[in-house]
């Protein structure tokens, strides 16, 4: 009996040691940056798009850093910002361009989880070290050397929790979707339902195809106010371009009491939080994400170990902390 207790304690200690060793291995990895051995470090950058206000500061930060990195001799060349046009097909073409340009490292912001995945696969198969940022494509865990992003399910949880906390009596609410099928839309919706479905005092009375579009979200808000009147208590949006437009529509109709919230923390919603016309928004730290990827590029160039999966947390921005994030 005594022997079996000692054996099980030893077994537990060994298992824990292996687990910690595994964790340590997962946290710290190293790669040779000059993958094709041509003596040059060439970095590629495939954006999600150039038009979305959330992606504008990410792209601007990448451009600023890599222009300087080339000037300082940290890297030899970079591709410049390649426009993914929120289109998987275009991203796959840009990936082929990166292969042709003999990139060693590529920062890639996938537009779609499944459809953009071939871009990652073809670059990884060509030996390129790919760092995915902002959202994961399907084979990210196997093919990319690192992922720097945030957990969109967590963002969905936070959206719903804000509504639950600020509407203690419950009521009717609507949900404004991003483009259906987009990974952020799917995961934020999943996170929202995980919380809201646990609260029977809330009833979802509309699930609108608003395509990330503030105009359509504003129409959904006015339609729902028209239909449900005072029973409507909240509007949950997959991004805050929509939640700010919906909130403006509510406020214009004398319904400042309706809680509108979305994700991203772009300029307009942040300013609305600051001036009090929007109560809160969920900030996704896009610049923090690209800085994480830049840090990995620097580690690769120096031959240092790095964390392959740093998570950049979402932040609930209210009147109390908006000053920290605006400007």
């Amino acid at each position: 009996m005594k022997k079996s207790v000692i054996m099980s304690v030893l077994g537990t200690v060994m298992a824990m040691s292996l687990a910690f060793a595994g964790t340590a291995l997962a946290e710290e990895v190293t790669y040779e940056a000059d993958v094709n051995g041509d003596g040059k470090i060439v970095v590629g950058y495939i954006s999600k798009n150039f038009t979305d206000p959330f992606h504008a500061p990410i792209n601007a930060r990448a451009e600023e850093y890599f222009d300087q990195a080339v000037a300082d001799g940290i890297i030899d060349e970079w591709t410049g910002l390649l426009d993914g046009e929120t289109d998987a097909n275009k991203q796959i073409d840009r990936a082929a361009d990166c292969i042709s340009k003999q990139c060693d490292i590529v920062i890639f912001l996938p537009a779609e989880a499944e459809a953009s995945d071939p871009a990652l696969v073809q670059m990884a198969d060509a030996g390129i070290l790919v760092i995915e940022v902002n959202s994961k494509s399907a084979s990210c865990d196997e093919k990319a050397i690192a992922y720097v992003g945030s957990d969109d399910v967590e963002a969905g949880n936070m959206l719903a929790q804000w509504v639950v906390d600020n509407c203690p009596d419950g009521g009717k609410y609507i949900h404004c979707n991003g483009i259906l099928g987009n990974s952020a839309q799917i995961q934020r919706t999943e996170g929202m339902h995980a919380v809201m479905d646990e609260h029977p005092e809330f009833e979802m009375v509309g699930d609108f195809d608003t395509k990330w579009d503030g105009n359509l979200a504003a129409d959904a808000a006015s339609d729902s106010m028209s239909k449900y009147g005072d029973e409507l208590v909240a509007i949950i949006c997959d991004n805050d371009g929509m939640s700010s437009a919906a909130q403006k529509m509510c406020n214009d109709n004398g319904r400042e009491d309706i809680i509108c919230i979305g994700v991203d923390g772009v300029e307009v919603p942040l300013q609305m939080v600051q001036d009090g016309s929007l109560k809160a928004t969920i900030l996704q730290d896009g610049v923090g994400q690209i800085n994480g990827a830049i840090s990995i590029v620097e580690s690769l160039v120096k031959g240092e170990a790095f964390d392959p999966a740093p998570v950049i947390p979402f932040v609930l921005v209210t009147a109390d902390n908006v000053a920290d994030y605006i400007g």
Partner: protein
Amino acid sequence: MASSPQKLKSYSKEDRIRSLLGQYGIGLVLVIMMIVIAIMEPRFLTLGNIINVATQISINGLLCYGLCLCITTGGIDLTVGAQLALTSCIIGQTMTNMGWPAFMAILAGVGVATLFGFIDGVLIAKFNMFPFVVTLSMQLVIRGLSQVITGGRAVMLTNAWFTGIYSNKLFGIPMPIIIFIVVTIIMYLMLHWTKFGRYIFAVGGNVNAAIASGVSRFWVIVGVYTISGVLAGLASMIYTSKTGSAQSNIGVGYETDAIAAAVLGGTSFAGGIATIPGCVLGIFIIGLIYNGMNMIGVSSYYQSIVKGLIIIGAVMLDMVMNRNKH
């Protein structure tokens, strides 16, 4: 012999009915839609919701009139979605970041949209380029320019006068409805009561005959694309006021709804056929599709399918009712 007059009388009655259906058939579709939606959701027919729909359709309405004119001359204007973005960015940039008065910012935004419409018209009329190719290419230029102006960032609009364009009311009527009504009256008078309107039909119906009759094809084409630019600029003013935000990624695909409304309203892609009252009906049908689905609670995954099927069904019904005309 006695049967002939009766038969003639009978034909006349049928012709009258057919003529009425021909003119107002799409209106019947609108009424049927309203009845069906009202049965499924009684709150649809409240005054508040009717005003809500009328306010919402103003943006697509203005775009539709521009498209209607271009299609009537045998062309198309695919730039209107990008024009929404460019005008919005110019208004946001000049008003918020440069401190211009709202009126001047609107004038600048709508002015640039007008200029791009004029350039489209010149390229099409002067160089005989295909309208589809010109406007497809130009929308890339316009969208790109809006990205350059704002760097892809959103610009907030806080000017109360400007943001009130969407939310303020005059004699209890929301401003977008008033703008829409005024533009509708102007468009009606222009297309159906002026020489320029008759020239538009002439160029679209038979361009060679029009030229032989002394109509200047150049100025007619330039005129309709310039008007389309003006209307897209005004639509953008309403849009930007509505969302309180100027950004370069708005308006993607908005030409689709505008074209759908024009075609539902009887505007022929063959050119030379269009009516402004028909467009009004088409605009309301498109607006009711969105509002009706929201009111009934159609799942977002099915809304696109329903919208496409309703448009096909409405056009088909209209063609059946107007088979002689078509």
